[in-house]
């Protein structure tokens, strides 16, 4: 497996663990004020079932290495810890223990991670504030990180054009965009947050899962072009093996919080779509 340790190791993860403790003080019974409109919008009822268990070991010691410019797909049944791993690497979740190295820079604690690693969510539409215009959404990473230097030289039109969106969309509301356009805007926003010149990692947390076939095909082409232009490293989280087999240089299989198998793509083409 010598092809892996190419000179520039983009990402290295050692012994990553994450456990959730559901604390419930017996005194403060949460009065469940069920608000229909909020629940319908959130659509995450299934994740609520996890809170019934008292302690959940989401990650049980994950070791991972990823060369720059390559694409790693992580597949596995739901609840195997794929999303938790992705959020830990992207700095959205603080792991219980373990280290995450980007080149020679540690990504823990998560403050500096956002310049090197960005995550595109499962439902790109939900990761865009409906009250924002397209320009606001695109500029938010720069405004949030208060890096005035980069925001001055960043042009919205160029950011949109990079992902194939017409510049005329700039002042429409994000809620008025179509599914495909929202996905492209989410990618454009992630690119705006990353260092324009340095190496960077883009994590796609099942972002291509629920798309129409044509829209997904266009997104695949966009992601492949971007990888060539900006030497991006992709981590593709998905439960759809055929998508992983198509996109990735390597596929890692996760189950119950650890990586159980990891092989380069060429050896995957033959097998049936079920893991």
């Amino acid at each position, binding site marked *: 497996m010598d092809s892996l340790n190419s000179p520039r190791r983009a990402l290295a993860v050692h012994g990553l663990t994450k456990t959730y403790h559901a604390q419930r003080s017996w005194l403060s019974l949460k009065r469940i004020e069920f608000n229909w409109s909020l629940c319908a919008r959130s659509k995450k009822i299934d994740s609520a079932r996890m809170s019934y268990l008292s302690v959940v070991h989401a990650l049980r010691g994950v070791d991972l290495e990823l060369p720059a410019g390559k694409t790693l797909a992580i597949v596995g049944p739901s609840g195997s810890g794929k999303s938790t791993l992705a959020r830990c690497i992207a700095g959205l979740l603080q792991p219980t223990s373990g280290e995450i190295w980007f080149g020679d820079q540690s990504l823990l604690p998560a403050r500096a991670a956002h310049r090197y690693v960005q995550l595109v969510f499962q439902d790109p539409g939900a990761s865009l504030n409906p009250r924002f215009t397209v320009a606001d959404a695109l500029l938010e990473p720069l405004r949030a990180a208060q890096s005035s230097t980069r925001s001055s030289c960043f042009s919205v039109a160029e950011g949109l054009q990079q992902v194939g969106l017409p510049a005329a969309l700039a002042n429409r509301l994000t809620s008025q965009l179509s599914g495909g356009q929202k996905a492209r805007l989410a990618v454009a926003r992630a690119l705006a947050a990353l260092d324009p010149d340095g190496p960077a990692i883009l994590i796609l947390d099942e972002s291509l899962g629920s798309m*129409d076939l*044509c829209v997904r095909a266009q997104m*695949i*082409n966009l992601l*492949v072009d971007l990888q060539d232009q900006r030497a991006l490293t992709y981590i593709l989280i998905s439960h759809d093996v055929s998508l992983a087999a*198509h996109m990735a240089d390597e596929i890692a299989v996760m189950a119950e919080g650890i990586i159980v198998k990891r092989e380069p793509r060429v050896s995957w083409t033959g097998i049936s779509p079920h893991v």
Partner: protein
Amino acid sequence: MSESEILLRVDDLSVTYRAGETYLPVARNLSFAIHPGEVVGLLGESGSGKTTTALALLRLLPKSAALKGRARFRGVELMEASEATLQKIRGAQISFVPQEPLLSLNPVIRVIHQVSAVVRAHTRLTGRQCRDKAGAALEQVGLASERLHRSYPHQLSGGQRQRVLIAQAIVSRPSLVIADEPTGSLDRESEQAILALLRSLVDQLGASLLLITHDPSILAAVADRVMVMYAGRIVESGPQAEVLEAPLHPYTRGLLECLLDTAQAGRTPDDRHVRAIEGSLPDFSSLPPGCAFEPRCQDRLPCCREADPVTVLSGAQQIACFLYGLPQ
């Protein structure tokens, strides 16, 4: 198939949503027929108007939707039927399997009672008899244990909830089941199981199934006939074998090429680009005058821009494209 044997004949059905001043023609001049015992697949991307078509047949669209055209179902004209006759048909003769299993079940009522409520709505049976029929329907869809019957929706998995919805749909032995993306939010295994279940139930009942989906690979295993919908129009329909293997309409061809396993054929291993249709769905409020697919179509003709193609017969398939019949 002679005239009398047709279960549902839809002629020139159009649905136009009115949002303030803008009019959205979501379904335009749909004409198709469904025969008893037939499984018809309605294929189209999200936003092509397929769910609206299903809800239009059951007259469940909001008031802001204007309905035109006719839909005759076993001698009853659905578009003019009164609310009373519609209530007798919904759930008893035409039933509906929704898309979101998560939110489509009443969270505070046990599943057995939700299924027996459908029976009670259509028969004069007593509570006990309704519950027995509901129990039988739940067993038929694979939820055998009594504990499952008495459980609440949030205690069941996505696949089990979908089975309850199917039980609701088949408990009063309908002759037409409309399933809107029944496997949309399920993972691979339960998707195949639900499709197999639907197919076997429909055969047992001798009912016909209108299966709505955006994924052609689902239809390959289940559908007898396939209708492809784009921007509110049926652009191509025909037997499943011809439409999926040898599509005539450029849109169908492009759609099937987006499938990964077909896109992979004949490409060098490390070139991961896939063939895709350029551009995006047209905006319903400003549809182009000619064929809606014309801006994205590779083999467009000059006349495609002026007029909307008329559906013509080509072999066993019906196709709405000037490639198969120039305008007179």
